[in-house]
Protein backbone atom coordinates (compact mmCIF):
# COMPACT_ATOMS: atom_id res chain seq x y z
CA UNK A 1 0.00 0.00 0.00
CA UNK A 2 2.83 2.34 0.86
CA UNK A 3 6.44 1.88 -0.13
CA UNK A 4 8.99 4.36 1.15
CA UNK A 5 12.65 4.20 0.27
CA UNK A 6 15.66 6.41 0.87
CA UNK A 7 13.44 9.25 1.97
CA UNK A 8 15.01 12.47 3.20
CA UNK A 9 12.82 15.27 4.51
CA UNK A 10 13.55 18.89 5.33
CA UNK A 11 12.03 21.37 7.71
CA UNK A 12 12.73 25.02 7.07
CA UNK A 13 15.35 24.19 4.45
CA UNK A 14 17.28 21.92 6.84
CA UNK A 15 17.44 18.17 6.32
CA UNK A 16 16.09 16.54 9.48
CA UNK A 17 15.72 12.89 8.45
CA UNK A 18 17.41 10.91 5.75
CA UNK A 19 17.46 7.33 4.54
CA UNK A 20 14.01 6.52 5.88
CA UNK A 21 12.55 3.39 4.29
CA UNK A 22 9.70 1.04 5.09
CA UNK A 23 6.74 -0.66 3.51
CA UNK A 24 3.24 -0.87 4.78
CA UNK A 25 0.80 -3.55 3.67
CA UNK A 26 -2.97 -3.58 4.18
CA UNK A 27 -3.82 -4.53 7.74
CA UNK A 28 -0.59 -3.15 9.18
CA UNK A 29 0.00 -0.26 11.51
CA UNK A 30 3.20 1.68 12.03
CA UNK A 31 4.01 3.79 15.05
CA UNK A 32 6.62 6.54 14.66
CA UNK A 33 8.66 7.36 17.71
CA UNK A 34 11.44 9.73 18.54
CA UNK A 35 12.15 12.75 20.70
CA UNK A 36 10.53 16.12 20.09
CA UNK A 37 11.83 17.86 17.00
CA UNK A 38 13.13 14.68 15.36
CA UNK A 39 10.86 15.24 12.37
CA UNK A 40 7.78 13.08 12.93
CA UNK A 41 5.38 15.76 11.74
CA UNK A 42 7.61 16.66 8.81
CA UNK A 43 7.80 13.00 7.77
CA UNK A 44 4.02 12.60 7.97
CA UNK A 45 3.41 15.76 5.94
CA UNK A 46 5.88 14.55 3.32
CA UNK A 47 4.18 11.16 3.12
CA UNK A 48 0.82 12.88 2.77
CA UNK A 49 2.20 14.79 -0.22
CA UNK A 50 1.89 18.20 1.42
CA UNK A 51 5.59 18.86 0.99
CA UNK A 52 8.09 17.45 -1.50
CA UNK A 53 10.76 15.05 -0.25
CA UNK A 54 14.38 16.14 -0.34
CA UNK A 55 15.39 12.76 -1.73
CA UNK A 56 14.02 9.27 -2.12
CA UNK A 57 10.56 8.16 -3.08
CA UNK A 58 7.13 7.61 -1.63
CA UNK A 59 5.20 5.05 -3.69
CA UNK A 60 1.56 5.21 -2.94
CA UNK A 61 -1.65 5.16 -4.98
CA UNK A 62 -3.84 8.14 -5.74
CA UNK A 63 -6.29 9.18 -3.06
CA UNK A 64 -5.07 6.62 -0.53
CA UNK A 65 -3.95 8.79 2.35
CA UNK A 66 -6.01 10.74 4.84
CA UNK A 67 -3.92 12.96 7.08
CA UNK A 68 -4.92 14.37 10.47
CA UNK A 69 -2.49 16.91 11.83
CA UNK A 70 -2.19 18.48 15.26
CA UNK A 71 -5.27 20.60 14.69
CA UNK A 72 -8.72 19.08 14.46
CA UNK A 73 -10.02 20.87 11.39
CA UNK A 74 -13.24 21.60 13.21
CA UNK A 75 -15.32 24.72 12.64
CA UNK A 76 -16.45 26.04 16.03
CA UNK A 77 -19.74 27.48 14.84
CA UNK A 78 -20.91 24.33 13.08
CA UNK A 79 -22.47 21.41 14.92
CA UNK A 80 -20.79 18.03 15.24
CA UNK A 81 -23.04 16.56 12.56
CA UNK A 82 -22.41 19.46 10.19
CA UNK A 83 -18.67 19.24 10.62
CA UNK A 84 -18.58 15.54 9.96
CA UNK A 85 -21.07 15.63 7.10
CA UNK A 86 -18.97 18.28 5.39
CA UNK A 87 -15.85 16.14 5.41
CA UNK A 88 -17.83 13.08 4.31
CA UNK A 89 -19.15 15.03 1.32
CA UNK A 90 -15.78 16.46 0.39
CA UNK A 91 -14.31 12.98 0.35
CA UNK A 92 -17.02 11.49 -1.80
CA UNK A 93 -20.05 11.16 0.41
CA UNK A 94 -20.08 8.25 2.81
CA UNK A 95 -22.44 8.07 5.74
CA UNK A 96 -21.37 9.49 9.06
CA UNK A 97 -23.33 7.07 11.27
CA UNK A 98 -20.49 4.61 11.82
CA UNK A 99 -18.00 7.33 12.67
CA UNK A 100 -20.41 9.00 15.09
CA UNK A 101 -20.97 5.69 16.85
CA UNK A 102 -17.33 4.65 16.89
CA UNK A 103 -16.24 7.81 18.66
CA UNK A 104 -19.31 8.05 20.88
CA UNK A 105 -20.44 11.33 19.38
CA UNK A 106 -24.15 10.50 19.03
CA UNK A 107 -25.06 12.33 22.20
CA UNK A 108 -23.29 15.45 20.96
CA UNK A 109 -24.68 15.42 17.43
CA UNK A 110 -26.38 18.81 17.50
CA UNK A 111 -23.95 20.62 19.73
CA UNK A 112 -21.85 23.40 18.20
CA UNK A 113 -18.20 22.43 18.14
CA UNK A 114 -17.22 25.50 20.14
CA UNK A 115 -19.11 24.05 23.10
CA UNK A 116 -17.19 20.78 23.07
CA UNK A 117 -14.43 19.97 25.52
CA UNK A 118 -10.91 19.56 24.17
CA UNK A 119 -11.18 15.78 24.31
CA UNK A 120 -14.59 15.75 22.62
CA UNK A 121 -13.26 18.00 19.87
CA UNK A 122 -10.34 15.64 19.43
CA UNK A 123 -12.72 12.73 19.05
CA UNK A 124 -14.54 14.66 16.37
CA UNK A 125 -11.22 15.34 14.65
CA UNK A 126 -10.38 11.62 14.69
CA UNK A 127 -13.84 10.66 13.48
CA UNK A 128 -13.04 12.77 10.41
CA UNK A 129 -10.64 10.02 9.31
CA UNK A 130 -13.41 7.44 9.29
CA UNK A 131 -15.65 9.42 6.96
CA UNK A 132 -12.93 10.01 4.38
CA UNK A 133 -13.15 6.40 3.23
CA UNK A 134 -9.40 6.44 2.59
CA UNK A 135 -7.52 3.20 3.31
CA UNK A 136 -4.39 4.72 4.86
CA UNK A 137 -4.85 6.88 7.93
CA UNK A 138 -2.08 9.07 9.22
CA UNK A 139 -2.27 10.64 12.65
CA UNK A 140 -0.04 13.17 14.31
CA UNK A 141 -0.29 12.76 18.09
CA UNK A 142 -3.85 11.43 17.94
CA UNK A 143 -4.32 10.86 21.65
CA UNK A 144 -3.58 14.37 22.91
CA UNK A 145 -6.20 15.43 25.46
CA UNK A 146 -8.08 12.12 25.23
CA UNK A 147 -9.07 10.26 28.42
CA UNK A 148 -8.50 6.53 28.84
CA UNK A 149 -11.95 5.60 27.59
CA UNK A 150 -11.54 7.73 24.46
CA UNK A 151 -8.12 6.25 23.77
CA UNK A 152 -9.87 2.89 23.92
CA UNK A 153 -12.41 4.07 21.34
CA UNK A 154 -9.58 5.23 19.10
CA UNK A 155 -7.78 1.88 19.40
CA UNK A 156 -10.93 0.00 18.54
CA UNK A 157 -11.58 2.22 15.52
CA UNK A 158 -8.04 1.69 14.24
CA UNK A 159 -8.25 -2.05 14.84
CA UNK A 160 -11.53 -2.31 12.92
CA UNK A 161 -9.96 -0.27 10.13
CA UNK A 162 -6.93 -2.59 9.96
CA UNK A 163 -9.13 -5.69 10.02
CA UNK A 164 -11.02 -4.23 7.06
CA UNK A 165 -7.83 -4.06 5.00
CA UNK A 166 -6.83 -0.55 5.94
CA UNK A 167 -3.53 0.67 7.31
CA UNK A 168 -2.41 3.38 9.67
CA UNK A 169 0.68 5.40 10.52
CA UNK A 170 0.76 7.41 13.70
CA UNK A 171 3.26 9.53 15.54
CA UNK A 172 2.72 9.13 19.24
CA UNK A 173 4.53 8.97 22.56
CA UNK A 174 2.11 6.85 24.58
CA UNK A 175 1.67 3.11 24.37
CA UNK A 176 -1.49 2.26 22.55
CA UNK A 177 -2.98 -1.19 22.91
CA UNK A 178 -2.08 -1.97 19.30
CA UNK A 179 0.29 -4.78 20.21
CA UNK A 180 0.92 -6.03 16.70
CA UNK A 181 1.82 -2.60 15.36
CA UNK A 182 5.38 -2.11 14.23
CA UNK A 183 7.39 0.63 15.84
CA UNK A 184 9.80 2.79 13.87
CA UNK A 185 12.22 4.83 15.94
CA UNK A 186 13.30 7.83 13.88
CA UNK A 187 16.34 8.80 15.95
CA UNK A 188 18.82 6.74 13.85
CA UNK A 189 17.70 8.51 10.69
CA UNK A 190 18.99 11.89 11.74
CA UNK A 191 21.58 13.00 9.24
CA UNK A 192 25.11 12.94 10.59
CA UNK A 193 26.46 16.47 10.67
CA UNK A 194 28.72 17.14 7.73
CA UNK A 195 28.40 13.73 6.19
CA UNK A 196 25.17 13.61 4.26
CA UNK A 197 24.58 13.89 0.58
CA UNK A 198 20.91 13.73 -0.11
CA UNK A 199 21.30 12.72 -3.71
CA UNK A 200 19.10 14.53 -6.19
CA UNK A 201 18.44 18.24 -6.50
CA UNK A 202 19.97 20.09 -3.60
CA UNK A 203 17.25 21.96 -1.81
CA UNK A 204 17.36 24.67 0.77
CA UNK A 205 20.70 25.13 2.43
CA UNK A 206 22.55 22.37 0.58
CA UNK A 207 23.48 24.57 -2.36
CA UNK A 208 25.21 27.05 -0.10
CA UNK A 209 27.43 24.72 1.92
Amino acid at each position, binding site marked *: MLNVSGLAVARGGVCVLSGVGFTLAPGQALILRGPNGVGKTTLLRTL*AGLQPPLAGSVACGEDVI*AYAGHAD*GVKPTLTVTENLT*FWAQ*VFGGGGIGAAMAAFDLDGLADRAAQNLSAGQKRRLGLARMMVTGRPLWMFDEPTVSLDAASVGLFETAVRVHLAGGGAAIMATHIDLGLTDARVLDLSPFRPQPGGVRTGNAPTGDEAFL
Partner: protein
Amino acid sequence: MIALLRRDMAVATRAGGGFGLGLAFFLVVVVLVPLSVGPDTAVLSRIAPGILWLGALLACLLSLDRIFALDFEDGSLDLLATAPLPLEGAVAVKAFAHWLTTGLPLTLMAPVLGVLLNLPVPGYRWLLASLLLGTSALSVIGAFGAALTVGLRRGGLLLSLLVLPLYVPTLIFGAEVARRGAEGMPVATPLALLAGISLGCAALMPFAAAAALRVNLR
Protein backbone atom coordinates in the same frame (compact mmCIF):
# COMPACT_ATOMS: atom_id res chain seq x y z
CA MET B 1 -17.76 21.44 -4.06
CA ILE B 2 -21.30 22.34 -3.10
CA ALA B 3 -20.55 21.03 0.38
CA LEU B 4 -17.58 23.37 0.65
CA LEU B 5 -19.65 26.30 -0.60
CA ARG B 6 -22.41 25.54 1.90
CA ARG B 7 -19.97 25.19 4.75
CA ASP B 8 -18.16 28.45 3.99
CA MET B 9 -21.46 30.28 3.71
CA ALA B 10 -22.61 28.81 7.01
CA VAL B 11 -19.37 29.68 8.78
CA ALA B 12 -19.45 33.24 7.41
CA THR B 13 -23.08 33.96 8.25
CA ARG B 14 -23.20 32.47 11.75
CA ALA B 15 -22.34 34.42 14.86
CA GLY B 16 -18.74 35.56 14.86
CA GLY B 17 -18.38 35.03 11.13
CA GLY B 18 -18.00 38.72 10.46
CA PHE B 19 -20.78 38.79 7.89
CA GLY B 20 -22.24 42.16 8.83
CA LEU B 21 -18.95 43.87 9.54
CA GLY B 22 -18.11 44.64 5.92
CA LEU B 23 -21.54 46.12 5.34
CA ALA B 24 -21.29 48.25 8.46
CA PHE B 25 -17.84 49.45 7.38
CA PHE B 26 -19.23 50.39 3.96
CA LEU B 27 -21.99 52.38 5.65
CA VAL B 28 -19.53 54.19 7.92
CA VAL B 29 -17.22 55.12 5.02
CA VAL B 30 -20.09 56.54 2.99
CA VAL B 31 -21.43 58.49 5.99
CA LEU B 32 -18.00 59.95 6.72
CA VAL B 33 -17.45 61.24 3.19
CA PRO B 34 -20.01 64.09 3.26
CA LEU B 35 -18.77 64.98 6.72
CA SER B 36 -15.27 65.45 5.35
CA VAL B 37 -15.91 67.04 1.94
CA GLY B 38 -18.92 69.14 2.93
CA PRO B 39 -22.66 68.83 2.29
CA ASP B 40 -22.74 70.38 -1.20
CA THR B 41 -25.05 67.99 -3.08
CA ALA B 42 -23.59 68.88 -6.47
CA VAL B 43 -20.11 67.87 -5.35
CA LEU B 44 -21.42 64.74 -3.63
CA SER B 45 -23.39 63.54 -6.62
CA ARG B 46 -20.34 64.04 -8.80
CA ILE B 47 -18.06 61.95 -6.62
CA ALA B 48 -20.73 59.44 -5.53
CA PRO B 49 -19.83 56.65 -8.01
CA GLY B 50 -16.18 56.79 -7.08
CA ILE B 51 -16.85 56.90 -3.35
CA LEU B 52 -19.28 53.99 -3.54
CA TRP B 53 -16.76 51.93 -5.49
CA LEU B 54 -13.93 52.78 -3.12
CA GLY B 55 -16.08 52.01 -0.08
CA ALA B 56 -17.12 48.65 -1.49
CA LEU B 57 -13.50 47.85 -2.34
CA LEU B 58 -12.26 48.67 1.15
CA ALA B 59 -15.08 46.74 2.79
CA CYS B 60 -14.21 43.77 0.61
CA LEU B 61 -10.55 44.10 1.60
CA LEU B 62 -11.45 43.85 5.29
CA SER B 63 -12.70 40.30 5.10
CA LEU B 64 -10.11 38.85 2.72
CA ASP B 65 -7.83 37.30 5.31
CA ARG B 66 -10.70 35.12 6.51
CA ILE B 67 -10.82 33.25 3.20
CA PHE B 68 -7.94 30.94 4.11
CA ALA B 69 -6.53 31.99 7.50
CA LEU B 70 -9.19 30.23 9.59
CA ASP B 71 -8.93 27.01 7.62
CA PHE B 72 -5.14 27.20 7.86
CA GLU B 73 -5.16 27.65 11.62
CA ASP B 74 -7.55 24.83 12.42
CA GLY B 75 -5.93 22.34 10.05
CA SER B 76 -8.83 22.12 7.60
CA LEU B 77 -6.61 23.30 4.78
CA ASP B 78 -4.26 20.29 5.18
CA LEU B 79 -7.15 17.93 4.79
CA LEU B 80 -8.67 19.96 1.94
CA ALA B 81 -5.34 19.87 0.10
CA THR B 82 -5.33 16.06 0.25
CA ALA B 83 -9.02 15.74 -0.63
CA PRO B 84 -10.18 14.46 -4.02
CA LEU B 85 -11.29 18.00 -4.87
CA PRO B 86 -8.44 19.77 -6.70
CA LEU B 87 -7.04 22.67 -4.70
CA GLU B 88 -7.74 25.04 -7.61
CA GLY B 89 -11.40 24.09 -7.40
CA ALA B 90 -11.44 24.56 -3.65
CA VAL B 91 -9.90 28.02 -4.07
CA ALA B 92 -12.47 28.98 -6.70
CA VAL B 93 -15.32 27.76 -4.49
CA LYS B 94 -14.00 29.60 -1.46
CA ALA B 95 -13.59 32.80 -3.47
CA PHE B 96 -17.14 32.38 -4.75
CA ALA B 97 -18.40 31.89 -1.19
CA HIS B 98 -16.54 35.05 -0.22
CA TRP B 99 -18.26 36.92 -3.03
CA LEU B 100 -21.68 35.60 -2.04
CA THR B 101 -21.18 36.70 1.56
CA THR B 102 -19.34 39.98 0.86
CA GLY B 103 -19.45 41.27 -2.72
CA LEU B 104 -23.09 40.50 -3.36
CA PRO B 105 -24.43 42.12 -0.15
CA LEU B 106 -22.19 45.13 -0.76
CA THR B 107 -23.54 45.44 -4.29
CA LEU B 108 -27.11 45.29 -3.08
CA MET B 109 -26.42 47.85 -0.37
CA ALA B 110 -24.65 50.32 -2.68
CA PRO B 111 -27.83 51.84 -4.23
CA VAL B 112 -29.23 52.49 -0.75
CA LEU B 113 -26.07 54.37 0.18
CA GLY B 114 -26.18 56.07 -3.22
CA VAL B 115 -29.22 57.95 -1.95
CA LEU B 116 -27.12 59.44 0.84
CA LEU B 117 -24.66 60.77 -1.74
CA ASN B 118 -27.25 62.06 -4.23
CA LEU B 119 -26.22 59.64 -6.92
CA PRO B 120 -27.94 60.78 -10.16
CA VAL B 121 -30.88 58.57 -11.09
CA PRO B 122 -29.45 57.02 -14.29
CA GLY B 123 -26.42 55.93 -12.30
CA TYR B 124 -28.11 53.30 -10.12
CA ARG B 125 -28.45 50.73 -12.86
CA TRP B 126 -24.81 50.94 -13.90
CA LEU B 127 -23.57 51.15 -10.34
CA LEU B 128 -25.32 47.84 -9.65
CA ALA B 129 -24.05 46.25 -12.85
CA SER B 130 -20.46 47.38 -12.36
CA LEU B 131 -20.32 46.32 -8.72
CA LEU B 132 -21.93 42.98 -9.50
CA LEU B 133 -19.24 42.25 -12.08
CA GLY B 134 -16.36 43.97 -10.34
CA THR B 135 -16.74 42.59 -6.82
CA SER B 136 -16.35 39.08 -8.20
CA ALA B 137 -12.93 40.06 -9.54
CA LEU B 138 -12.14 41.67 -6.18
CA SER B 139 -12.94 38.40 -4.39
CA VAL B 140 -10.82 36.22 -6.68
CA ILE B 141 -7.84 38.61 -6.66
CA GLY B 142 -8.23 38.88 -2.91
CA ALA B 143 -8.18 35.10 -2.60
CA PHE B 144 -4.80 35.14 -4.33
CA GLY B 145 -3.50 37.74 -1.88
CA ALA B 146 -4.91 35.75 1.02
CA ALA B 147 -3.21 32.61 -0.28
CA LEU B 148 0.14 34.43 -0.43
CA THR B 149 -0.08 35.66 3.15
CA VAL B 150 -1.89 32.74 4.79
CA GLY B 151 0.99 31.46 6.88
CA LEU B 152 2.07 34.83 8.22
CA ARG B 153 1.41 36.25 11.62
CA ARG B 154 -0.23 39.64 11.24
CA GLY B 155 -0.51 39.16 7.50
CA GLY B 156 -3.52 41.48 7.29
CA LEU B 157 -1.67 44.69 6.59
CA LEU B 158 0.71 43.02 4.14
CA LEU B 159 -2.32 41.52 2.42
CA SER B 160 -3.70 45.02 1.84
CA LEU B 161 -0.38 46.24 0.49
CA LEU B 162 -0.17 43.32 -1.95
CA VAL B 163 -3.78 43.36 -3.08
CA LEU B 164 -4.40 47.08 -3.54
CA PRO B 165 -2.14 47.52 -6.60
CA LEU B 166 -3.73 44.41 -8.08
CA TYR B 167 -7.13 46.06 -7.64
CA VAL B 168 -6.19 49.06 -9.80
CA PRO B 169 -7.58 47.90 -13.17
CA THR B 170 -10.80 46.61 -11.66
CA LEU B 171 -11.31 49.82 -9.72
CA ILE B 172 -10.60 52.02 -12.73
CA PHE B 173 -12.98 50.25 -15.08
CA GLY B 174 -15.65 49.62 -12.47
CA ALA B 175 -15.74 53.18 -11.21
CA GLU B 176 -15.62 54.41 -14.82
CA VAL B 177 -18.75 52.42 -15.66
CA ALA B 178 -20.55 53.83 -12.63
CA ARG B 179 -19.35 57.38 -13.34
CA ARG B 180 -20.28 57.34 -17.00
CA GLY B 181 -23.61 55.77 -16.11
CA ALA B 182 -24.30 58.55 -13.62
CA GLU B 183 -23.43 61.21 -16.19
CA GLY B 184 -25.55 59.57 -18.85
CA MET B 185 -22.59 58.72 -21.08
CA PRO B 186 -22.23 55.43 -22.99
CA VAL B 187 -20.79 52.69 -20.79
CA ALA B 188 -20.30 49.83 -23.23
CA THR B 189 -16.49 50.02 -23.52
CA PRO B 190 -15.52 50.11 -19.83
CA LEU B 191 -18.25 47.59 -19.05
CA ALA B 192 -16.82 45.19 -21.61
CA LEU B 193 -13.31 45.71 -20.24
CA LEU B 194 -14.54 45.19 -16.67
CA ALA B 195 -16.29 41.99 -17.71
CA GLY B 196 -13.09 40.86 -19.42
CA ILE B 197 -11.07 41.44 -16.27
CA SER B 198 -13.61 39.64 -14.10
CA LEU B 199 -13.76 36.64 -16.40
CA GLY B 200 -10.01 36.50 -16.84
CA CYS B 201 -9.43 36.68 -13.10
CA ALA B 202 -12.06 34.05 -12.37
CA ALA B 203 -10.46 31.73 -14.92
CA LEU B 204 -6.77 32.20 -14.06
CA MET B 205 -6.36 33.48 -10.51
CA PRO B 206 -7.46 30.23 -8.79
CA PHE B 207 -4.42 28.55 -10.32
CA ALA B 208 -2.03 31.19 -8.99
CA ALA B 209 -3.76 31.12 -5.60
CA ALA B 210 -3.60 27.32 -5.40
CA ALA B 211 0.10 27.40 -6.27
CA ALA B 212 0.71 29.91 -3.48
CA LEU B 213 -1.33 27.81 -1.04
CA ARG B 214 0.66 24.68 -1.84
CA VAL B 215 3.88 26.56 -1.13
CA ASN B 216 2.47 27.81 2.16
CA LEU B 217 1.33 24.35 3.24
CA ARG B 218 4.80 22.85 2.83
